[in-house]
């Protein structure tokens, strides 16, 4: 029933790395939770179900644990019962089961109605299946909807902020990775991937990364901001996997292996820094009791440790060297740069667009995390809540520090991590090509680049130390004084707000955001320039939610309206309905078997329409 194959063990390690710091953090956070028993039961069940998903080697256990994972996380979102979390939980419940239907269909199609089939025989069954494209789409929709890929990501920015912070860290850090695990596991069951599959995954990844970071920038709820960044990072992972799939199809196994390793390495990295970000954001939330980023400010003075942890994670997620986030993004770039060896010109030309998307994502992520860190931790306190915040309790601090250790060790022990990933995946062994020596990581192609995180880190530390010594040797006089505010007092209101910080970007991408701006100004004695109070708020409704989800909701409403009308007819109307159906059968019989001329078809359609209009709907009242 369970199997410790290399891929499972790799993701088991990922889960354990994420869960152990989280346990400390959770026990510190527990005092904030009212229904402790309910929370603890579901928390541990959630952790065990994720381990179960990763280790199970038969269909039924897999499905059982998958469903358990969904249900426990659904209950965890409901820990604090308020209107917002109930709505989020309902949405999450629906979306996760929407994906579950596809997963179930996938298994039912190939399992031959034997749900105790082990995955090894499932692999043979999948290889023999006649229509692999159907299987690919079932896998993609089923698992990637859980991973939060555009356009199936809409539940994510609602569900993750509604849960308590340790759970958000688990959901964003680990649950999404379990979905990536399942996708990887089953995509390797299918033989001979057509080129289109890889392209679909690449495009989905590129779109997700851009959409995720753009909505993160416009967000003011710190946890929703981080949740949107999860969409972005899942996108980056999928870019790598898509590139890997394309190279596999093109019979370039070395390049494919490099891209897959990059994707899985980024999965690890995202687990580490996203957990750390959610933990430190959770600590801020724990102390200030608000998720609104505009109400923070100056927290670095009250909570220095949390601030430093957030800073480490922010530098890492912004893909700045020499952190682990940079290293995985570097690998993804390198694998995309190797695309110049492809002979298909159209495919070759499409790679610069993916590179563009990834680079723009990186740039916007930097902007977003400067905003998140700067507005939250720097400057003056923007509210009384922020002013009276204290550093969190020791257990939560231990959790954060442990997670930061994971982040840093993923960078320091890069060769080891890469080696483990390479062994775990069913790809060529390229470890010796990437690391001829453990100090320098090489790209897989002959003329590729190279990077050495240890050298960069060492260089940075040495130079900072040298400059510091230079600074000390000067013996400068230091004085502390107020910030110059052009003669006015420096106060919290005159600082830049998060809305203002993202202003230029919001304005540039206005076609995407379509912001609703509410302003209210009370003028003084009719002078437009003088006002006693003013109010400015920008509201952004995600495009996908608006068009895709609300659109289909509207369509369902229209259809149900007509069905409702149909079901409340009198007897005569039903008779007429049957008469019309009879007519339809006769007409279609005539058209299909005897005379197929367009004139006849048109005439019959008109006759049908007239009967329906007059007899069924009647006159408009």
């Amino acid at each position: 029933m369970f199997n410790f194959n290399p891929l499972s063990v790799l993701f088991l390690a990922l889960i354990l790395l994420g869960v152990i710091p989280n346990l400390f953090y959770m026990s510190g956070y527990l005092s904030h939770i009212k229904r402790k028993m309910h929370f603890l039961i579901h928390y541990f069940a959630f952790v065990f179900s994720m381990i179960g998903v990763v280790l199970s080697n038969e269909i039924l256990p897999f499905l059982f644990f998958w469903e358990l994972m969904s249900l426990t996380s659904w209950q965890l979102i409901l820990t604090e019962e308020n209107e917002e979390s109930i709505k989020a939980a309902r949405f999450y419940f629906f979306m996760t089961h929407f994906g579950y239907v596809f997963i179930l269909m996938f298994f039912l199609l190939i399992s031959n109605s034997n749900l105790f089939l082990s995955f090894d025989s499932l692999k043979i069954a999948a290889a023999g299946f006649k229509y692999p494209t159907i299987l690919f789409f079932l896998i993609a929709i089923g698992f990637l909807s859980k991973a939060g890929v555009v356009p199936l990501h809409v539940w994510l920015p609602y569900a993750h902020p509604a849960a308590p912070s340790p759970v958000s860290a688990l959901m964003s850090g680990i649950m999404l990775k379990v979905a990536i695990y399942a996708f990887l596991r089953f995509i390797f069951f299918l033989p001979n991937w057509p080129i289109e599959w890889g392209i679909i995954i690449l495009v989905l990844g590129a779109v997700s990364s851009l959409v995720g970071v753009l909505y993160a920038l416009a967000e003011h709820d710190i946890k929703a901001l981080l949740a949107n960044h999860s969409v972005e990072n899942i996108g980056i992972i999928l870019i790598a996997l898509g590139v890997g799939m394309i190279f596999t199809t093109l019979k370039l196994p070395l390049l494919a292996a490099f891209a897959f390793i990059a994707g899985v390495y980024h999965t690890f990295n995202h687990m580490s820094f996203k957990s750390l970000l959610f933990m430190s954001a959770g600590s801020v939330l724990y102390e200030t009791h608000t998720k609104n980023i505009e109400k923070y400010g100056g927290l670095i003075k009250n909570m220095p440790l949390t601030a430093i942890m957030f800073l480490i994670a922010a530098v890492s997620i912004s893909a700045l060297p020499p952190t682990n986030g940079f290293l995985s993004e570097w690998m993804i770039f390198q694998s995309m740069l190797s695309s110049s060896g492809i002979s298909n010109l159209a495919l070759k030309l499409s790679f610069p667009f993916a590179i563009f998307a990834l680079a723009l994502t990186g740039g916007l992520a930097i902007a977003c995390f400067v905003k998140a860190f700067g507005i939250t931790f720097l400057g003056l306190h923007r509210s009384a809540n922020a002013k009276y915040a204290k550093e969190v309790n020791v257990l939560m601090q231990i959790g954060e520090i442990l997670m930061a250790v994971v982040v840093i060790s993923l960078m320091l022990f890069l060769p080891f991590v890469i080696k483990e990933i390479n062994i775990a995946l069913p790809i060529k062994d390229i470890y010796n090509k990437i690391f001829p020596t453990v100090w320098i990581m090489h790209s897989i192609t002959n003329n590729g680049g190279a990077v050495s995180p240890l050298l960069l880190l060492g260089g940075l530390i040495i130079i900072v130390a040298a400059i510091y010594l230079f600074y000390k040797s000067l013996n400068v006089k230091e004085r502390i004084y107020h910030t110059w505010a052009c003669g006015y007092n420096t106060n919290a209101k005159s600082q830049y707000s998060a809305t203002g910080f993202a202003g230029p970007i919001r304005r540039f991408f206005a076609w995407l955001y379509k912001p609703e701006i509410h302003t209210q100004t009370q003028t003084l004695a009719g002078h437009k320039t003088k006002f006693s109070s003013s109010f400015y708020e920008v509201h952004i409704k995600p495009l996908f939610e608006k068009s895709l989800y609300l659109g289909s909701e509207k369509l369902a409403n229209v259809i149900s309206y007509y069905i409702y009308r149909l079901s409340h007819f009198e007897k005569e109307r039903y008779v007429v309905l049957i008469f019309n159906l009879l007519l339809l059968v006769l007409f279609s019989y005539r058209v299909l078997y005897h005379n197929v001329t367009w004139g006849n078809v048109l005439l019959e359609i008109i006759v049908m329409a007239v009967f329906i209009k007059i007899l069924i709907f009647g006159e408009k009242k």
Partner: protein
Amino acid sequence: MIDYILSVILLFIISPFLVGFVKSIKMYMLFKKPLSPFWPYINFLKLLKKEVIYSKEGSFISKTAPFLILSPIIVVMFLLPPIFKGSFYISFMDAFTITGLLSLSTFFLMLLGLDSASSFGGIGSSREAFISALVEPAMILSVFAISLMATSIGLGKAALNLTYHFPFSHAASFILAAIAFFILLIAENGRIPVDNPETHLELTMVHEAMILESSGVNLALIEMATALKFGIFATLFATLFLPFGANLCWCLAVIVYILKLILICVLVAVIELNTAKLRLFKVPNLLGIAIIFGFLSLVTFYILGV
């Protein structure tokens, strides 16, 4: 090894001169009495003697940020392509690392702007975030294009390949990439038309707004970082997009290199004089041109084939 250290020191010494030189050319062309091109050194020494004032509203970020702004840029100086053959050691690292390190420096610069609770700092950070987000894709596309032409992603090897076997069949895409990179040189170093380094007006400030609260040694370190960044971009342009001279004997190669840097300075100064500063929301158009040129360079390269 000695060559390597000497060329790093050369770049370190010459960078402030370049910034001062651009300024004095501009003044000369405006019929003003030109400032000495060695003025940045004088300024640097003057700032070292002054006392440092820290903002009461700030935190330890204000104290550490100047170090973290300068140090990635100094690391980049060790990773540049060679001026003459064998002069750089660690130039196997590629342009992504360099882009990343420059972004790391900008990241802390933006945090410094937000730290002192002044609205000027916020203005500067916000604008810088906006501009650098759009610079990043253009940078990576043009570097990708040049590394394809040079058949190497590692910068050192790329510069040497370009010097020895210039890809004449890909001259079109080479020029497109060069234009894209030159726009980036202007945008990243806060020059007109993207930013005006000489005014302290809230409408136009980007870079200056972020460092408004820094003083004394801290300001000196940040100004040093700015000058070095200009030197780095000028060196990258000189070695990758003006690829000649590196195969000469070392003394001639260094002279050619310095001449190239001076040429770049003159170009920058002339562009600064003949354009007005763009409104912030028009800057994306300029950077869009850089992105499009990067794309076009790649497309022409692919269509012409290897």
